[in-house]
């Protein structure tokens, strides 16, 4: 174990940049920019060159990702809870300095509203959560003995549940249901790595069901409820909550097998796709490129996600593995929720499509996440 084997040396020779991950991500990013150009081509001046800004963000995100990959992830492990604390403070700051957009304060302005720069702490909170959960599992004193050696009880999940619970509550309060769901998704995915007793699992399922009922009755905002009911019964409210998803679905269907052609999707061209640069870039893409294009894109995301799981499987330690799963889960849930919502598989929740949706916080977060994946991938054979 302490000496590198022959095979280990071969592996070390291949060490370095994870080209497959890099190329997969680059493909998505390039298609994303091309699609953003089509999506915003119909918009009025000021929005039409968003794709240029997006390229700047990609470059900035790339630099941030390089840094995230370069610093040995064990530093993140060591500082995990400090970072976590910082993230929570930023989320609290949103309530003080927050800037209202569509009735929700999610942003913090830096350097003035006009020329300044603003960001969403909740975006970075996703990565911070992945890091902290990984840290918890890494330091977990209760690592079960070998295969078949029992499982965890519900009590063993209290600390991670608190770790996700605080940011979840803060984000849901903004209110930002989409991000809250992603946080929960990351938590579920990372926890799925652990072994749980089946009795505990049963209890959990019952508990979650009961909690959902309470949440429905007391916690959810009306507009959030409306989105859910209109998802269950889409005919109920076409013009309101369902107007977006109705026209998004029409756009996707209008793409047919091969699409209407780049920049020729009529639903987009005639402004039937709202928020086409943030939450609804996929219908634009699917209308332009059809089923063929949609398939390629989903395949690309699937590849990156599966590759991310592969990185976790080959990670050197528990922190690396859990971190890789957390980051991968973030990318997966984003893509799944977004495409699911625009195709009508899921209710409308505002979740961005990684590297397709315009936005600095979103792009930077995804790319830093990729950087972390790269970090784990590159250091799987580092000893010490």
């Amino acid at each position, binding site marked *: 174990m302490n000496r590198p084997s022959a095979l280990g040396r071969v592996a070390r020779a291949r060490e370095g940049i994870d080209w497959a991950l890099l190329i997969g991500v680059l493909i998505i990013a390039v298609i994303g920019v091309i699609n953003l150009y089509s999506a915003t081509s119909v918009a009025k001046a000021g929005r039409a060159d968003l794709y240029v800004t997006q390229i700047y963000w990609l470059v900035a995100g790339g630099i941030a990702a390089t840094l995230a990959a370069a610093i040995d992830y064990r530093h993140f492990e060591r500082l995990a809870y400090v970072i976590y604390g910082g993230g929570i403070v930023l989320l609290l700051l949103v309530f003080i300095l927050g800037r209202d957009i569509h009735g929700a304060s999610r942003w913090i302005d830096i350097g003035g509203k006009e020329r300044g720069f603003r960001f969403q702490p909740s975006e970075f909170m996703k990565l911070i959560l992945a890091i902290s959960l990984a840290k918890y599992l890494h330091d977990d004193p209760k690592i079960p003995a070998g295969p078949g050696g029992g499982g965890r009880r519900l009590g063993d999940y209290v600390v991670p549940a608190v770790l996700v619970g605080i940011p979840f509550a803060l984000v849901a309060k903004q209110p930002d249901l989409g991000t809250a769901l992603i946080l929960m998704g990351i938590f579920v995915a990372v926890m799925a790595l652990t072994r749980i007793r089946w009795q505990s699992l049963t209890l959990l399922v019952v508990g979650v069901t009961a909690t959902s009922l309470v949440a429905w009755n007391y916690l959810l905002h009306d507009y959030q409820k409306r989105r859910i009911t209109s998802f269950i019964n889409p005919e109920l409210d076409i013009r309101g909550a369902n107007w977006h998803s109705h026209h998004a679905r029409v756009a996707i*269907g209008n793409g047919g097998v091969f699409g209407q052609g780049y920049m020729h999707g009529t639903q987009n061209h*005639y402004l039937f796709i709202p928020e086409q640069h943030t939450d609804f870039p996929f219908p634009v893409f699917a209308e332009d490129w059809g089923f063929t294009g949609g398939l390629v894109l989903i395949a690309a995301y699937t590849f990156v996600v*599966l590759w991310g799981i592969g990185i976790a499987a*080959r*990670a*050197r330690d528990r922190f690396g593995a859990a971190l890789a799963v957390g980051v991968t889960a973030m990318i997966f849930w984003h893509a799944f929720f977004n495409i699911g919502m625009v195709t009508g598989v899921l209710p409308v929740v505002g979740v961005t499509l990684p590297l397709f949706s315009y936005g600095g916080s979103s792009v930077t977060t995804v790319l830093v996440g990729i950087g972390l994946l790269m970090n784990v991938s590159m250091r799987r054979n580092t000893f010490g």
Partner: protein
Amino acid sequence: MNLLGQRPDVGEFRKRYKWLALAVVALNLVLVGKLAHLQLIKAAENAAIAHDNIVHKVTLATSRGVIRDRHGVVLAASRESWNVYVVPARLDLDKTYPRLAELLGLGPVERATLEQRLREARAKDLAALKLDPKHRIREIIVREDISRDTVGALETHRAELSAVSWISVPLRYYPQKELTFHLLGYVNEVNKEDLDALPEGQKKELQPGDRVGRSGVEKAWEAFLRGQRGWKKVVMDARGNRRTAKEDQALIDAPAENPPVPGRDLRLSIDADLVSTARKAFAGQLAGAVVAIEVKTGRVLAVYSKPGIDPNDFVTGLSQKQAEAILTNPLSPLTDKTLYEAYFPGSTMKPFHALAALGAGAVTRDSHELCEHVLQVSRTRFKCEGFHGQISMHDAIVRSCNVYFYQLGKKTTLDKMSAMDAEFGFGQRSGVGFNHESPGLIPTTAWYMQHYGGFRTGFALNAAIGQGNTKVTVLQLAMAYAALANGGTLYAPQVVQAIETPFTDAGGGGIEQDFPPRIRRKIGVDPGQLKFVKEAMAGVVNEEGGTAYRERTTKVMVAGKTGTAQVSRVGQKPGIDPHLIWYFNRDHAWFAGFAPYDDPEIAIAVLVEHGGGGGHNAAPIAMRMFDEWFTRIKPAHEGAATAPDGKPLPSASKGPAK
């Protein structure tokens, strides 16, 4: 041995990765499945919705036919007007509406009411959309007939006026104003009842905002005048803005357009100049009516009913104040006095009763009666206007002796007189076909039995001088006088001479259908007796002592008959100043006649409501019309064979040869 050099504690995770991977693949397959459902199975359906989202059919207005007089003078046409429409469901009430209200120059009250209306329409449409995504949202009209300046202002601020459009629509225009009010009628906007009344299958022929004929020729000939609307497909984005670039047009599927069919033009037999003359001649009178008939065809040369209203006021809708003024006017401007209302004809009926008496052999041409001003029949005294002594039939007509005609009536009997009246078209609708023509009333013995429970000789006496229960319309009288003039041919009155196809770039401008004169009947009168009666009618105008002698014209020899009809006395009339009630108790003045005597061309009947004596008040109006017709109007069109339309109207230049 861990080949990857992992720490042993990662072992807890090892079995989980494949499940995670499996979950990822499974969930993504759900997405692919849904994508396939939308893009492969439902592709056509979604493509159709996407197409319907942007390609909209807009209706193309048709143009209502132009109505011209016999020489091409335009009586009713369409002029350009601009209307402003709004799509309430897509209107930004907070930003766009205030700007629009400002540009339209709306007052604060108007502004608030319209905003309320738009809000309601918007809520209604949005609610309907929730139930049915295919619900067609409505465009509503917010302002009609805006000025050119306003159109310019709207054009300038087009970018700020999302969901607002302004469209040029033809608006009916009556250049002759109140002159042609009763004849042409007017058009105004259809209401819900009109739309509901449309038979199934024709529901699309009319839409809210369309205008239809409400009276007169506009109503009677609606089917020809209206035309058929068409449609055109346009591309519109989600915000309700039209897109007109080349690539937008390429999305429109065939057929892209269904062109409208323009309405047919009408050529009337009316001579606007003669109608105008009638109006001038009527200047001194408050109310009355004129009908002029072409003797040899039965075509109507002029109809005029006073007072009239400018029909243009009706086209865009009357204000409350205007409507009240019209409805409370004691002179009933809405009534077409040429044919809707029937009046006691008075002495203008005497020629027909003379013919009845001669035909029945009740009297001879030379028989005399003694007029001592009053004729006592049992306990009733029947009066004459004069004291004529021994008087012949000729003189009785010339001087309008009532006593002679009382005796004539007694001898001829009521039913023989009413039979002759019926021959000349009284008591029946003439068939002119508009404005709810009154049939008038020619009482018979049977009628008196039914309505009065018995018959007395006095009824015949009164009927003989056109009083009692006899009622005729001005049109009936003119037609009957035309029949007298032309030797006994009763025509159906015709106002429309021809239907013409509109003159457009594509051609047209020709006669589609013309209407030859329609004879109702040849009246069985002895030509000698008719000539005798007509001589007497010539005497009315041309013999000293004739009731219209002093009003005669020297330009042409006119034959005719005056009439002074008593009216039912009223003590009070609602809405009328009691000090003016004397006017409404005054007799109606009549004159009916034809000219030239030798070869009559034109017959005219004039009624001056409450005008007093017929000779003084009605005859001058007819005389002036005869006068101008023969000295000015007719000669102006004498060269008709070479220049069919005297007026230099571009649209009339291709008109038919009259």
